[in-house]
C-alpha cells in the first residue's frame, strides 16, 4: 500500500499571476477593471469639464416646463399648454400604439405568407418568395417612404369623393368612394375610419392624468368573462365525455356564451359607429388616422412580416415529417394534427426569433422621424430637445425608455416562451 502524500504547498511567486490559471483570471479581471474604470472616469471627467465650460448642469427640471407645441395624434389628452413630460408621454403612447398594431399585423401577415410559401401551389409559393426577398433585402426606410408617398400622392383628395346633384342626374360616378361598406375613406389628408360611440356612456374615471373609459373597461371585463365561461363549458363537456363516453353538443352553447353577453352590453350602452362624412372641403366625424401613422404602420408591417414569414416557415420545416405521419397513423384529422402535433412543436422554434422581430419592429418605429410621426423620438428626442437644448438629458431619457420598453417586451415574451417550450424533467 502506498501513501499518497499531499503535494507540498507552493510558495506564491509573482509569475503565478500570469502563468497559474488559478490566479490568472484575477489578474486579467483586475487589469480589465482598471482599464474600464479609467475609461469611464475619462469620459465622465470630459463630460463634467465640457458641461462646466458650457455653463450647463444636468437637470431634468425642464420636463415640467410648458411644452408649447402641438402634437398631431394624441392618445392621452394634451394641449400645447401641457408640460414637456406630458408631451413625452404622448409620444411614448404613439410609439407603443404603432408598435403594438405593427406587431399584430406583421404576425398575421407573416404567418399567412410563411404558410403559403410552403404551399404545394407553385405559383403561390413563388409569389410569396418574391414578396419575402423583395422586402427583406431593401431598407425598411424605403418601404416607409414609399407607403408615405402612396398615401400622400396617389390617394384621392377629399374633394374627389364629392357627389353633386348634377352628377347624380347625369349618372356620373365620383372619382373616389369609401371602402369597407362605405365607411372608410382613404384620402391624401389622412384615412378616416368609423368611431365607436356610446349613447348611454358610463363615463370615465381619471387615474392621475389619464382618463380611462369605463365603457372600454366594461367591454373588456365582459369579453374576458365570456371567454372564461366558454373554457369552463368546454372543460365540462370533456369531463362528461370522459365519464359517459359521449360528448354533449356544445356549439350553440359556445356561441351563446361567447357572443350573447357582449351583444347585450353593447345594446345596453347604445353602441353605434360614427361614419366619416364629407362636409365642406374635408371629412367630418369618425377618427382621422394621419398618413404618417399609416405609412409607418404599413411600412413596418410589410417589412417585418417578411422576416416573420421566414421564421414561421423555418419553424414548420423544423418539425420532422414523421410527426405528421405518426399523427395520421393515430387517426388524427389534418386540423387536429396541425393543432395538437405540429404547431406546439413549431412554436418552440418560432417564438424566440419572433420576440426579437417584435423588438426590432418596436425599435424601428423610431423611423417615424422620416414621416414626421410624433413618436417618442419626435417629441422628447425631437422638439423638446431642440426647444430646451438639453441634449444630454433628453437622449439619456430617450434611451432609457427604449431600453425599458425592450426589456419589458422581451420579458413578457420570455414568460410566454417558457409556457410553450419543451417541458423537460
Amino acid at each position: 500500500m502506498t501513501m499518497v502524500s499531499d503535494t507540498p504547498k507552493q510558495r506564491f511567486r509573482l509569475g503565478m499571476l500570469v502563468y497559474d490559471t488559478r490566479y490568472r483570471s484575477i489578474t486579467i479581471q483586475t487589469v480589465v477593471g482598471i482599464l474600464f474604470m479609467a475609461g469611464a472616469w475619462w469620459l465622465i471627467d470630459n463630460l463634467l469639464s465640457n458641461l462646466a465650460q458650457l455653463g450647463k448642469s444636468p437637470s431634468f427640471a425642464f420636463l415640467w416646463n410648458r411644452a408649447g407645441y402641438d402634437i398631431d395624434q394624441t392618445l392621452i389628452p394634451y394641449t400645447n399648454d401641457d408640460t414637456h413630460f406630458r408631451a413625452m408621454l404622448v409620444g411614448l403612447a404613439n410609439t407603443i400604439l404603432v408598435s403594438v398594431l405593427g406587431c399584430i399585423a406583421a404576425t398575421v401577415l407573416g404567418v399567412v405568407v410563411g404558410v403559403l410559401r410552403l404551399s404545394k401551389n407553385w405559383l403561390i409559393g413563388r409569389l410569396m418568395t418574391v414578396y419575402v426577398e423583395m422586402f427583406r433585402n431593401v431598407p425598411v426606410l424605403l418601404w416607409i417612404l414609399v407607403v408615405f408617398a402612396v398615401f400622400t400622392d396617389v390617394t384621392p383628395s377629399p374633394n374627389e369623393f364629392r357627389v353633386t346633384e348634377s352628377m347624380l342626374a347625369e349618372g356620373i360616378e365620383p372619382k373616389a368612394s369609401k371602402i369597407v361598406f362605405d365607411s372608410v375613406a382613404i384620402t391624401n389628408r389622412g384615412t378616416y375610419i368609423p368611431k365607436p360611440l356610446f349613447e348611454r356612456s358610463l363615463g370615465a374615471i381619471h387615474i392621475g392624468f389619464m382618463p380611462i373609459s369605463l365603457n372600454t373597461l366594461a367591454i373588456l371585463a365582459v369579453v374576458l368573462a365570456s371567454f372564461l365561461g366558454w373554457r369552463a363549458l368546454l372543460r365540462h363537456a370533456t369531463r362528461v365525455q370522459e365519464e359517459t363516453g359521449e360528448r354533449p353538443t356544445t356549439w350553440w352553447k359556445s356561441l351563446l356564451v361567447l357572443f350573447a353577453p357582449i351583444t347585450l352590453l353593447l345594446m345596453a350602452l347604445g353602441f353605434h359607429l360614427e361614419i366619416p362624412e364629407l362636409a365642406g372641403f374635408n371629412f367630418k366625424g369618425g377618427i382621422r388616422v394621419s398618413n404618417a401613422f399609416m405609412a409607418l404602420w404599413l411600412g413596418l408591417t410589410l417589412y417585418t412580416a417578411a422576416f416573420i414569414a421566414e421564421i414561421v416557415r423555418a419553424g414548420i420545416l423544423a418539425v420532422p415529417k414523421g410527426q405528421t405521419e405518426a399523427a395520421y397513423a393515430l387517426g388524427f384529422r389534418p386540423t387536429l394534427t396541425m393543432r395538437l402535433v405540429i404547431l406546439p412543436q413549431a412554436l418552440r422554434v418560432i417564438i424566440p426569433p419572433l420576440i426579437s422581430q417584435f423588438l426590432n419592429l418596436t425599435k424601428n418605429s423610431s423611423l417615424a422621424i422620416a414621416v414626421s410621426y410624433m413618436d417618442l423620438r419626435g417629441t422628447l428626442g425631437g422638439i423638446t430637445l431642440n426647444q430646451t437644448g438639453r441634449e444630454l438629458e433628453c437622449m439619456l431619457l430617450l434611451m432609457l425608455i427604449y431600453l425599458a420598453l425592450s426589456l419589458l417586451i422581451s420579458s413578457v415574451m420570455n414568460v410566454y416562451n417558457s409556457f410553450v417550450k419543451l417541458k423537460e424533467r
Partner: protein
Amino acid sequence: MSDTHAQTELFVRHEMIPPSEPPALETGAIKWLRENLFSGWLNTILTILGLLVVFGLARLFLPWFLHGVWNANSLGECREIIAQTWGPDASGACWAMIRERWNQFMFGFYPRELYWRPVLALLFLLVGLAPVLYSELSSKLVAAGAVIAALIVVLAYNYGVWLPVGMLVTIAAVSAILDARGAKWPRNLLWFSALYPAVAFWLLWGGSVWLPFVAVLGFVLGFIVMRLVSAQLGAILGASAGAVAAVLWWSFGAGPLDEALIGMTGTARPFWLQTVTSDQFGGFVLAFTIGVTGIAASLPLGILLALGRRSDMPLVKVISVGFIEFIRGVPLITLLFVASLLLNYFLPPGTNFDIILRVIIMVTLFAAAYIAEVIRGGLAALPRGQYEAAAALGLDYWKSMRLVILPQALKISIPGIVSTFIGLFKDTTLVVFVGLLDPLKGITDAVRAAIEWKGIYWEPYLFVGSIFFIVCFSMSRYSMYLENKLKREHR
C-alpha cells in the same frame, strides 16, 4: 420439375408487354399543371387569385415601366414626351432622372474629377475580398480578376492618372513573388486584404500617403513585438506588450515621423492626393464606406464580446452583457443621435472629429452587439465535448478557441452573421437623420429639391431600392454558398 416446365411453357410469355403510354392527363405540362396549380379546389382558388394579383400588378406597373423615357432634361419634358408618344392619359416612368443624376446617386458631392478614387477603392475592395471569400482559384475568379484589372487600366486612362496602374502592378508583382515562394493564388493576396483599409482611407479622403503609412507601421511594430516577446515570455505577455508597443508608437512615434515624411515629399504626385472632406461624401460611396467598414470591424468585436459573455470571469462577463443588452435595447437612430449630438460632450474640450468616423463607430458597435448574440448561439450549440477535447489536448484558452471552437461556432452562425451584415448595410440609410447624404433619402431629397425634378417619387426609390436589393441579395446567396461549402455532415 423440368416436365412441368415443359408443359406450362406454352402459356408463359417470353417478352414483357410494352408499357402503355400514360393517360394524356398524367404527362408533361398537363400533369405538372394539375399537380402544382390545380390539385384541389383550394389550390385552384389560390392559383386563380395569384394569377389575378399578377395580372393586376402587371397592368398597373408594366405600362408605366415600359413607357419610360430615358432622354429628357426634366420631369416636365418626360411627361410631354410620354403624352406625345402614348397619349395624354398614359403614365410612364422618367428614367432620364437616373441618367441625369447618376453621378450624384453614386458619389454625392465628391469632386467630379476625382471620381476615379472611390471607383478604384471599390475595385480594390473586390481584389482584397477575393482571398477572404474564396480559398481556391477557379476560372471564374481568374476571369473576374482580369475584368477588374482591365477596368482599372480603363479608369486610369480615362482620368489620365497612372497611380491606379502603378498600384495594380505593385499588387500583382508582390503577389507573384509570394506565389513563387509557396503562397498560392488567391491566398497570396491576403497581405493586400490586410493593407486595404489604409489604402481605401487614402484613396477616399486623400491627403498624404504617410498618415495611413505610419498608422499601419504601428500594427506592424505591435506584431513584431508580440512575436518577439511571445517567444520569450508566453502568449499573454506577448500580446499585451504588442498592444502597448503599438499604442506607444501611435502616441509618440507616428506623429513626428508623419511630419518628417510629409516635409520630405510635400505634395509631390504619388505621395499626395487632393483632400476630400467628409461633407462631400454621399450616395453609395457613403453607404459603402460605412457599410464595409462597419462589417469588417464589427465581426472581430462581436467575437470578442461573445467570448466575453461566455467567460468564467464575472467582471468581463458583466461588462460584455451590459454592453450587448444596452446596445440591443435602443434603436440605431438614438445611437446615431448620440454620435452627432453627444459625443463631443464625452471627449476632451475642443476636440471635434469626423462625423463619418463617429457614425462608423456607432454602426460598428451596434452591429457588434447583434453579432455577439449570434455567435453566442453558435458557441452554445457546440457540444461540450469539443471544449473538453480541446482542453484535453493541452491547448490554452486562445488556442482552443482559435483552432477548435471558433471555426465550428462561426460555421454554425454564418446565416445569422450574414443577415446582421445585411441589416447593417441597410441601416446605413439611417445616417440621413444626422445630416449625411445617404442615397435613399438624402440624395433623393436633394434631387427633388431641384426645380426640374420636383415631384419625382417612384423612380429614385425604385433605383436605389434595386441597388440595395442586388447587394443584399448577393450577400445572402454568398452565405448559402458558404454554408454548402463548409457542410461536413452529409457528403
